[in-house]
């Protein structure tokens, strides 16, 4: 399968404003991230808060401007596009946000919310708009009768379905899903994940799935990128691949199984996550790593590819 998305050395540096009392500081929210996403595949990006996974999602859609690197979408160099060209391209690459409560205008009916992408893009749907909206609502498992309802009249899970319907309105090929179930109850999360699985096979979609939940990512995705403090530290080619980076292993050992017979032995983890404004030289995981050596404190390990399983570690497991 050809690549739908190619990300090369993508970086974003944020700088805080300085003042008379404080020097301006800068941090790399995303630092040299590269990966390919083939058509029809699902890549999961997993990491803890502050690792840069949501920033990465926004950089790819150019919702924020990268400081460096390149993004190619279906052959197009996104960073070379003008804002108008970018807007047209975004019809084919859409995002579903974590918080369905703030993603939909509370004053819009659901019909208007779902029809908004057509308005923004200046596209006239093939069918009359009311039929188009009804079709989209049905596609995400909502009763078309809800079209005249307002967001406050429906539940969180239903709102997230509306968020997905909106994202699908212009028949995109890529969906970037930024923690689409993080604010939902597990029983509703499972519904939404099932819906996304169905839509993927019915519409031939490609997903970039951002999540902090490793079990969910393992369940839902084909490949996994593990991020820590702005960098991809490991790229697992499939969900069965054993962890090679000590951080990935820590993450796996910290994720509990829903089975009392498979309790984890939790090893104490030393150290704290360093401040992204003040990263230690070398590997960012060095203070929490059981395998750390002098080399790890001086040299940042590069993401080395061996048989498709890339790991950024001087002493991989």
């Amino acid at each position, binding site marked *: 399968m050809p690549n739908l998305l190619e990300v090369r050395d993508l970086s974003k540096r944020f700088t805080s404003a300085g003042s008379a009392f404080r020097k301006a500081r800068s941090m790399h929210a995303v630092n040299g991230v590269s990966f390919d996403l083939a058509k029809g595949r699902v890549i999961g990006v997993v990491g803890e808060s502050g690792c840069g996974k949501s920033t990465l999602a926004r950089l790819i859609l150019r919702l924020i401007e990268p400081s460096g690197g390149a993004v190619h979408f279906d052959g197009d160099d996104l960073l070379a596009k003008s804002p108008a060209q970018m807007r047209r391209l975004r019809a084919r690459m859409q995002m579903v946000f974590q918080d369905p409560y703030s993603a939909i205008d509370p004053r819009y009916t659901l019909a208007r919310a779902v029809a908004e992408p057509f308005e923004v893009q200046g596209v006239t749907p093939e069918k009359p708009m009311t039929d188009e909206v009804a079709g989209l609502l049905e596609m995400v498992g909502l009763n078309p009768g809800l079209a005249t309802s307002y967001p406050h009249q429906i539940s969180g899970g239903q709102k997230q379905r509306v968020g997905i319907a909106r994202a699908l309105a212009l028949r995109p090929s890529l969906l970037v899903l930024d923690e689409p179930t993080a604010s939902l109850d597990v*029983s509703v999360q499972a519904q939404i994940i099932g819906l996304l699985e169905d839509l993927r096979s019915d519409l031939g979609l490609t997903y970039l799935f951002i999540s902090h939940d490793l*079990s969910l990512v393992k369940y839902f995705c084909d490949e996994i990128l593990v991020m820590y403090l702005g960098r991809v530290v490991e790229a697992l080619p499939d969900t069965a691949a054993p962890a090679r980076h000590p951080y990935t292993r820590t993450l796996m050992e910290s994720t509990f199984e829903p089975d009392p*017979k498979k309790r984890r032995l939790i090893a104490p983890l030393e150290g704290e996550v360093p401040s992204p404004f003040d990263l230690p030289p070398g590997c960012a995981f060095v203070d929490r790593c059981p395998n750390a050596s002098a080399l790890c404190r001086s040299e940042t390990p590069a993401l080395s590819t061996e048989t498709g399983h890339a790991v950024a570690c001087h002493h991989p497991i």
Partner: protein
Amino acid sequence: MLSVRDLGVAFGMVQPLSGVSFSVNKGETLGIVGESGSGKSLTAMSVMGLLPLSGGRITGGSVEFDGQDLTKLPERAYRKLRGGRIGLITQNPMTSLDPLQKIGPQVDDVAKLHLGLDGAEARARTEDILGTLRIPEPSLICERYPHQMSGGMKQRIVIAMALAADPDVLIADEPTTALDVTVQAQIIRLLDDLVKERDLALVLITHDMSVVAQTCDKIVVMYAGRAVEHGPVEEIFDRPRHPYTQALIACIPRGLDDATRLTGIEGTVPTVLNYPKGCPFHPRCPRAEAICATDPPEFSVAGDSAAACHFAEVANAQPA
């Protein structure tokens, strides 16, 4: 140590909690698990005697602690107990910490109030407890403010406060929900160690079945303000008899070991204003029949566990 029998709670005309029973002994961890709006936090508030603060009242049942019924305890006596022999850990550490006060004095106050220690004794105790919670350099931490610390560290401070008066029972309401998984694992391990070392009775309230599976001895599954199933954790996970428990377990991704598709539960969690009549789960239940919509089910006991379902016997006969 702590035994709740048939607890009911009302706010005005609304009855958000009814028929909740559980007990927990020393050295034991009980998990109360349920989705949002199931009444698990309200259960914690009732046990802590904090309902009057939000305008609620206990309408029935008992909360027995060390031989006395707490529902009949006057507020003055409750104050001695609360934060003393019964400690509380909340989800968001910042609701328990004063942002304007250094850590040391905040923890000291608990021991001063409940154990009658003087300043120096209390501080020595504080540093000792911080040490047992594997907080590096306790004396330095005492001089810091909450905003200078990470979320995991703040939660450890809240646990230290809960431990400062040497409680018998610890109620932890979603203690790790706001934390990253690696930090969550550390806090869970800490709580596990405390239960063993101090012979504590721990009530762990959570929405996360995996956390329950990892750490609890017994569990109570709640739905729409009712306990629907309770028993030893292995039994509940191996042979869940209530359709809600079965569905809840089927909703959790199991990674690689199990490639079965997540099913989800049709419909949505009811809110307190539209709790269904009869069995609260019947509108979403695949097994529901006419009786489920009219008669609230009684608990059907099997071994050490019990499920409030009209068809619990049938469920038991079929492997879930």
